[in-house]
């Protein structure tokens, strides 16, 4: 039986990890992810999990330890944020290139400088092309559900890729929310026994990890990686179907909210989607056909499906909680625009950068954006394609 609880996002993720009960975790504290590992290590200290910890001396070593442990042949997880993920950078590529199914909670936080501990997506977006799977979560429930599903997706024999589960720092990680825990046994059965692939600890079959690959083969390995990425969507959907059976909750590659007949729409990730949905409701009450799309699987990006979901709208605003400095637009916008590229008569697009460094995203912001979309839908004209909102002049 599911259990209703009131917990923070971090608490929910830590509890999911407890239920999954990995063999090894290597981690290093960083705000706001620290709390996940603090809670988890108390499970370790109290014998509630079988996990052996590597309490590393840096995030670089934490991810290095995860890579060693995963290659050794067992289930591995960790958690980090911001600068921690930045320090892991090199290792993120090695984990994915070596096809090691490590699961990591990324509690999204702004990158320094200036130093800031609050939530934005610059860390996760910075790591979007490192070959990991990324699942983004609106609230504690989704963070919990995504964490459990991430193991099954990452460890799937057709996939074998690391996966990160993103949740907003503080806004979700530290706020208490009502949600449901699934039974231990159901989680255990859902993730199943870990199946090792080429484990280092199989001394009867010695393998070498991490060869030097020169011009003769590097590209073949990259192409193989790209191909595997293309299989992830199906596995995510299959896992979601199975997950619904134990949770009653439906997941897809992305969530649509009142989008079917919508003329204007917002595309937005994580916690700010919640705020936006309320505003969408109020616009609907006024008779305005507004809707929302919230990506869940951000890597690999389900561009075909998302393109199809948005192609019939008149105007869409993509809200980015990170900027791609010197690039054309925010990182989410770039992918959305690319998804709509084949649809000649697709919606007019605009891009707002919001909420950096934990700056509040308020209903008023969503209202302003939706009102602007109403105008654009009428005139077909955009004043400014990319703009920061909630910033002082």
């Amino acid at each position, binding site marked *: 039986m599911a259990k209703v609880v009131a917990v923070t996002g971090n608490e929910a993720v830590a509890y999911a990890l407890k239920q999954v009960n990995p*063999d*090894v975790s*290597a981690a290093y504290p960083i705000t706001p992810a620290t709390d996940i590992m603090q809670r988890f290590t108390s499970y370790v200290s109290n014998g509630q999990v*079988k*996990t*052996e*910890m*590597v*309490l*590393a*001396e*840096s995030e*670089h*070593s*934490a991810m*290095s*330890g*995860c*890579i*060693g*442990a*995963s*290659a*050794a*042949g*067992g289930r*591995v997880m960790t958690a980090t944020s911001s600068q921690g993920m930045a320090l892991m950078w*090199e*290792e993120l590529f*090695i984990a994915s290139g070596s096809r090691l199914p490590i699961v990591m909670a990324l509690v999204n936080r702004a990158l320094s400088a200036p130093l800031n501990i609050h939530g934005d997506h610059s860390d996760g977006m910075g790591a979007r092309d490192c070959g990991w799977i990324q699942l983004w979560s609106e609230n504690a429930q989704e963070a919990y559900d995504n964490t459990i599903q991430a193991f099954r997706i990452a460890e799937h024999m057709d996939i074998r890729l690391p996966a990160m589960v993103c949740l907003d720092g503080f806004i979700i990680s530290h706020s208490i929310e009502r949600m449901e825990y699934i039974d231990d046994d159901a989680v255990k059965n859902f993730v199943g026994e870990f199946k090792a692939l080429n484990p*280092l*600890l*199989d*001394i009867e079959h*010695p*393998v*070498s*990890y*991490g*060869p*030097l*690959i*020169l011009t*003769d*083969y590097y590209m073949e390995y990259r192409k193989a990686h790209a191909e595997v990425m293309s299989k992830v969507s199906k596995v995510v959907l299959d896992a979601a179907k199975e997950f619904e059976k134990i949770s009653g909750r439906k997941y897809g590659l992305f969530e649509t909210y009142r989008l079917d007949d919508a003329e204007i729409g917002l595309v937005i990730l994580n916690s700010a989607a919640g705020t936006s949905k309320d505003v969408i409701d109020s616009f609907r009450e006024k008779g305005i056909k507004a809707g929302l799309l919230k990506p869940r699987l951000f890597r690999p990006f389900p561009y075909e499906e998302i393109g199809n979901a948005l192609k019939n709208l008149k105007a869409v605003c993509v809200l980015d909680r990170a900027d791609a400095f010197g690039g054309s637009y925010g990182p989410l916008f770039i992918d959305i625009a690319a998804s709509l590229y084949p649809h000649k008569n697709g919606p007019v697009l605009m891009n707002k950068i919001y909420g950096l460094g934990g700056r509040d995203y308020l209903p008023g912001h969503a209202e302003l954006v939706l009102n602007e979309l109403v105008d654009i839908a009428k005139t077909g004209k955009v004043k400014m394609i990319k703009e920061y909102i909630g910033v002082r002049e």
Partner: protein
Amino acid sequence: MATPLTLKELSKKEVLLTSGHRMCSGCGAPIIVKMVLLASEYPIVAANATGCLEVSTCISDYTAWKIPWIHNAFENAAATLSGVETMYRSLKKQGKIDKDIKFIAFGGDGGTYDIGFQSLSGAMERGHDMLYICYDNGAYMNTGIQRSSATPYGADTTTCPAGSVIQGKPQPRKNLTKIMAAHDIPYVAQASPSNWSDLVKKVKKALEIKGPKFMNILSPCNRGWRSRTDDAIMLSRLGVETCYWPLYEIENGVTKVTFKPKEKKPLVDFLKPQGRFKHLFAPENENMLKNFQEMVDKEWGSLLKASGTE
């Protein structure tokens, strides 16, 4: 009774690093790895820092390793092996593995003294059951002989070239062996491939001790040392006999010099055959030679004192 430690006995064992690796002709590192692997009575899982040994022993589909082996990156052999060893403990505790496996990390001086130092220090402090072996050739040889903190005083490298103003590396070598001993780990040792039996004994001893162990092994590199392809063993022997590279161990805090040359040779005997020290023999650099000899004497003296064999 254990089989006596003879080359004859050792030669009956399979060498778990095969021919067909692409280390330079006459390199010291594969000799060290061979001896280390021969010393073990246990199955070994190894980690390797990026460096000469790593790039030359596992290229695409060709691996020279007959043991499970992992290369992750440059600065994290110790952290990577921490993960492997921790997974081993986890699976063993769960009854999924029953064999006794030992864990060895190999890193060059760049990956050990410098960029990998934090990872090494962390792994040692956490107490992982592993032996970390540094094959110290005294520079970043893999990237083309750049100075490292293991580069000896006065040596010419591509980033501290002997010029008209600066005469090679101005600083003395970092004494990593001592720093590792300061971690209060159960076993720290220095060895040289010239003294194969001393080296093998130390590895054997290290593998019997539970917890973190560190060995620093002198590894001649004829490219970087600007010497001949046939002198790796000769030079490592001279390193030992001049006490430039003293052979000793520190077991549970007790220092023991494991080889005391009958007659300590002058340091120049070690320096002279190496082109990287050529400029030190110019008359105006006489002082540097003197300084260098004094550094060596000082370390040797303090080692003798610590081991009570003055």
